[in-house]
C-alpha cells in the first residue's frame, strides 16, 4: 500500500512540475506582445540576421548540396526577400535545416524566426502558428514501382501507402480511396529517403507526398502516376505571438506575387 502511494506521489509530482513549466511558457509571449507590438521585428533588427528554418532534403525547394555544402532553393530565395525587406540586405539570413518534427518546436522556442519548409497550411495548424498567404500550390502525387502495375487509386485495394509524418497527403489520399471504394493502409515515416527505402524493399506499394518533392526521388524502376489530389498550399510560418513579423512576411509574398518575382523564382528553380 505504501509503495503504491509513493508511486502515485511520483506521478503527481511530475505532472505538477510539468504544469508549472507550461504556465510560464504560456505567459511569456503575452507580456512581450503587450509591451511592444513590433518587438519581434526589433529583435531581428538588433540581431542583424533573420533566422530561418528550411528543408535540406527537398531538391529545388530547400536542399543541401552535398558537394558545396550550401543550402539553396526556392524557399531560401524567399527567405532572402524577407531579409531584404526587414534588414535591407538579402544576405543577412541564417538558415538551418528542419524536419517535420522539429519545425514546430523551433518556432515556439524562438530558435528560428520563420519556417519556410514546404509547410502546408491547414486550419488546425493556423491555430498554433501564423501562416502567410500561400507562395506555392502543389498536389499530392504517388510513386509506384513500374513492376507493380498500379495505374490509379482504384488499383490500390489492400495496398500499403507510405507517407511522411506531418504530411497532409494521408488525409487527401484516404478521401480519394474512399471515393474509389478501395481499402488502403498507411505507414508513416520520418524522412523522405526512408519512404523511398521502404518502397524499394517492398514494405510499401505506393510512395505518396507532394508532387514537387516526389520528383526528386524518381529513378529507373519507379514511375509517378498522373493523378494529383487535394492542392496543398505552402505558407511561411511564424510564432503566433510575432504578429508584426507575420504581417511583414505577408507583404513580401504579396509584392513578389504582384511584380512577377515569385513566378520568376519558380521558373529559375525549374519547378513546373
Amino acid at each position, binding site marked *: 500500500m505504501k509503495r503504491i502511494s509513493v508511486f502515485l506521489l511520483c*506521478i503527481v509530482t511530475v*505532472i505538477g512540475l510539468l504544469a508549472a513549466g507550461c504556465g510560464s511558457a504560456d505567459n511569456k509571449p503575452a507580456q512581450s506582445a503587450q509591451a511592444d507590438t513590433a518587438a519581434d521585428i526589433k529583435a531581428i533588427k538588433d540581431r542583424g540576421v533573420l533566422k530561418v528554418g528550411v528543408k535540406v532534403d527537398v531538391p529545388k525547394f530547400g536542399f543541401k548540396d552535398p558537394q558545396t555544402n550550401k543550402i539553396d532553393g526556392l524557399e531560401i530565395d524567399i527567405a532572402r526577400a524577407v531579409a531584404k525587406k526587414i534588414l535591407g540586405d538579402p544576405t543577412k539570413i541564417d538558415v538551418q535545416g528542419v524536419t517535420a518534427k522539429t519545425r514546430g518546436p523551433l518556432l515556439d522556442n524562438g530558435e528560428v524566426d520563420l519556417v519556410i519548409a514546404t509547410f502546408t497550411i491547414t486550419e*488546425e495548424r493556423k491555430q498554433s502558428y501564423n501562416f502567410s498567404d500561400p507562395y506555392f500550390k502543389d498536389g499530392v502525387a504517388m510513386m509506384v514501382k513500374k513492376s507493380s502495375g498500379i495505374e490509379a487509386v482504384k488499383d490500390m485495394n489492400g495496398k500499403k501507402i507510405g507517407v511522411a*509524418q506531418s504530411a*497532409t497527403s494521408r488525409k487527401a489520399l484516404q478521401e480519394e480511396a474512399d471515393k474509389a471504394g478501395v481499402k488502403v493502409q498507411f505507414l508513416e*515515416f520520418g524522412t523522405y529517403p526512408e519512404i523511398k527505402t*521502404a518502397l524499394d524493399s517492398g*514494405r510499401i506499394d505506393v510512395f505518396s507526398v507532394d508532387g514537387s518533392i516526389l520528383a526528386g526521388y524518381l529513378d529507373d524502376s519507379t514511375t509517378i502516376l498522373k493523378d494529383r489530389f487535394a492542392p496543398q498550399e505552402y505558407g511561411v510560418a511564424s510564432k503566433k505571438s510575432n504578429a508584426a513579423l507575420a504581417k511583414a512576411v505577408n507583404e513580401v509574398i504579396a509584392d513578389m506575387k504582384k511584380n512577377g518575382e515569385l513566378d520568376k523564382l519558380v521558373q529559375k528553380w525549374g519547378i513546373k
Partner: protein
Amino acid sequence: MNGPFADYKWAALAHDWAVFGEGFANTVMVSCLALALALALGVLFGVLGSSNWKVFKGITRVYVEAIQNTPLVIQVFFLYHGLPHLGIMLPVFAVGVLGVGMYHGAYISEVVRAGIQAVPRGQLEAAYSQGFSFWGAMRYIILPQAKRMAFPPLTNQAVSLIKNTSVLAMVAGGELMYQADSWSSTNLYYGPAYIATGVLYLMLCLPLATYARKLERKAAVNV
C-alpha cells in the same frame, strides 16, 4: 492562451486518447513477447557461454559482440528494410519482437553468465559427483543460485527493453512512440503529445525499476 501547452491542445489529446491507447497496447505487447524471447536467448547463451565447450563459447561470443557493438536502430533497419531484399518479409510486429528481443538477449546472456560464474565452482563439481548431467546440474543446482545474483540487473534490462521498443517508431511500428509522432506531427500539438507519452512510459517502467531496487536490497541483506 497560445503556446506549446495551450489548453485546446490538451483537449485535442483527451479527445484522441484512443490513438495513444492503441500505441500503448502495442508497446506492452511487443515488450512482453520481446522480453520472453530475450530471456530464452539470454539463459541459453548465458549457460553456453559459461560452459567449457569451445564451439558454443565461440558462437556465444560472436552473438554477444555483434549485437552489443552495433546500434539497435541498425539491427531493426536491417530486419525491416534489409531482409525483404533477401525474400524475407517479416511483419513489423515480428520485426519489433525479434529485433528488441535479440538485442536484449545478448545483454541478458552476459547477466546470466555473470550470475553463473558467481556461483562457487565447487557447486558444479558436487553436482557432478552426485551424478547430475551438465544440464541437470544447471537446471537444479546452478541456475537457482545464479538467479538471486542476476535478478536485479535482469529487471533493469526489462526496463531498458520497454524503452527501446520506441525505435520501432522509425519503421512505422504502430507502438506508442510512433502514434505520438504521427498524431503530433499532423496537428503540431507536440507539447501534450510527448508529455503524455513520457508519462505512459514512466507508468510502465517505474514500477519495474522500483521492484528491481527492492530485489537489490533483499540480495544485499542475504549476502
